[in-house]
């Protein structure tokens, strides 16, 4: 009897493992939630501790970086319906991000370049070119989740920790009499990393992995980002600027699980 019961339990669990493996959106929800929180929490703790930037300072820098992004990418595309869509999807994702201290905002840039950016403090931008390539919500969610992870994990501001201008930023936000050049220099450094040099590849891969988990927790298809990248890759030969600040798409795809397209 005992052996029979044991066999039944083993078979049942094996069947369940196999069945759930075919539905990644179901089987690894809990795991995804745990992973995304653990990773983001740990990273955030380290980054916060290292940078010592207050939330107010982070937002001030992020707002100025957002100005730079909007200036360099053709302004904001003032399409109310599209803006509502990115905010709905973005806010669902942000609801499960680690950082709830931010007011997350999502916007479209009036540029046909194919790219997306995030500014510290909770502002996420996606170009019109990329947005129009992604009519599928799961794919759009994959891209937005990647950008959210950059903010959630403080990627853009973690390097300010050892920056000599930190004191100037702190002084400026608290007291506007401090020299503005220091603030502008810090903003310029962050903007340059986001818009020109890009994050290092490992940071991007982290954001890919974390974004996939975040999308999964939020009940968007975990394969959304992968599908979006494949779509973008197909255009890379004929388009001037495709994810120019990110690592090669092929290397990103190699590191993402082979989730089915949504």
């Amino acid at each position, binding site marked *: 009897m005992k*052996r*029979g*019961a044991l*066999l*039944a*339990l*083993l*078979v*049942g*669990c094996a*069947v*369940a*493992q196999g069945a759930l493996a075919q539905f990644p959106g*179901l*089987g*690894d929800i*809990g*795991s995804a*939630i*745990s*992973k995304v*929180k*653990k990773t983001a929490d*740990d990273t955030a703790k380290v980054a916060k501790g290292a940078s010592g930037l207050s*939330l107010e300072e982070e937002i*001030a820098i992020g*707002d*100025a970086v*957002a*100005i730079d992004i*909007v*200036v360099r990418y053709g*302004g*904001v595309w*003032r399409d109310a319906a599209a*803006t*509502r869509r990115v*905010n*709905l999807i973005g*806010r*669902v994702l942000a609801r*499960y991000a*680690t*950082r*709830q*201290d931010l*007011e997350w*905002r*999502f*916007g479209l840039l009036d540029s046909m370049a194919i790219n997306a950016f995030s500014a510290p403090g909770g502002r996420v931008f996606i170009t019109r070119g990329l947005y129009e390539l992604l009519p599928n*919500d799961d794919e759009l969610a994959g891209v937005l989740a990647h950008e959210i992870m950059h903010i959630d994990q403080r990627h853009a501001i973690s390097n300010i920790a050892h920056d000599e201008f930190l004191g100037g930023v702190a002084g400026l936000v608290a007291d*506007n009499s401090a020299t*503005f050049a220091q*603030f*502008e220099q810090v*903003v310029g450094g962050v903007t340059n990393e986001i818009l020109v040099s890009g994050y290092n590849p490992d940071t991007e891969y982290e954001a890919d992995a974390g974004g996939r988990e975040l999308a999964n*927790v*939020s*009940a*968007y298809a975990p394969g959304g980002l992968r599908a979006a990248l494949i779509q973008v890759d197909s255009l890379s030969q004929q388009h001037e600027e495709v994810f120019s600040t990110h690592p090669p798409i092929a290397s990103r795809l190699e590191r993402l699980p082979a989730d089915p397209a949504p």
Partner: protein
Amino acid sequence: MLLPSRTLVQLTKPVRFPVLYALIALACAIAAPPGYAEFSKGDKVWSKHLETALLAEPSPLAASGAVVGFAEKLTIKEIRGAWLRVKADDVAGWVFSGNVATDKPKLAPAAGFTTLDASQTNTVAAARPLTPAAEQYAQNLGAGDAQADIDWLDAESAALTQLDLTSYMSENRKGEYRE
């Protein structure tokens, strides 16, 4: 060889598979699917929203038995899929695991943006304007248009109410509203 020979011999015998055992196996599969093991009974988690409802059942539509505030320590008493039954000091209930943090959050949520549950409001939140430093930055850059663009964007974003978001999630089965 994956299995010892003795086991192979046993498997060649007719195997009785009583309904009871099948039910036990099914219960095992439902109760402990892979991937849920990272939350364990007895673990401590923290609420991360301004208000988090502890529900009577593991469903977003269940009645709210209690509401806990930001960064309250919760002990996991039971796990059912992506839902956790948790206990605070003197209240208990179900919470979607996406709504708790594994470490105590330090910075409180921005008011009006992350409140969950019964106090959801249809009131349009006031948009936080650009910080004075960023406004000055835009002015120095001669980027008045960009500043106006961001002001427009912030107003559009703020026009999206908590009720809009909840309705969207419910209709599209997102987050805790997933099927």
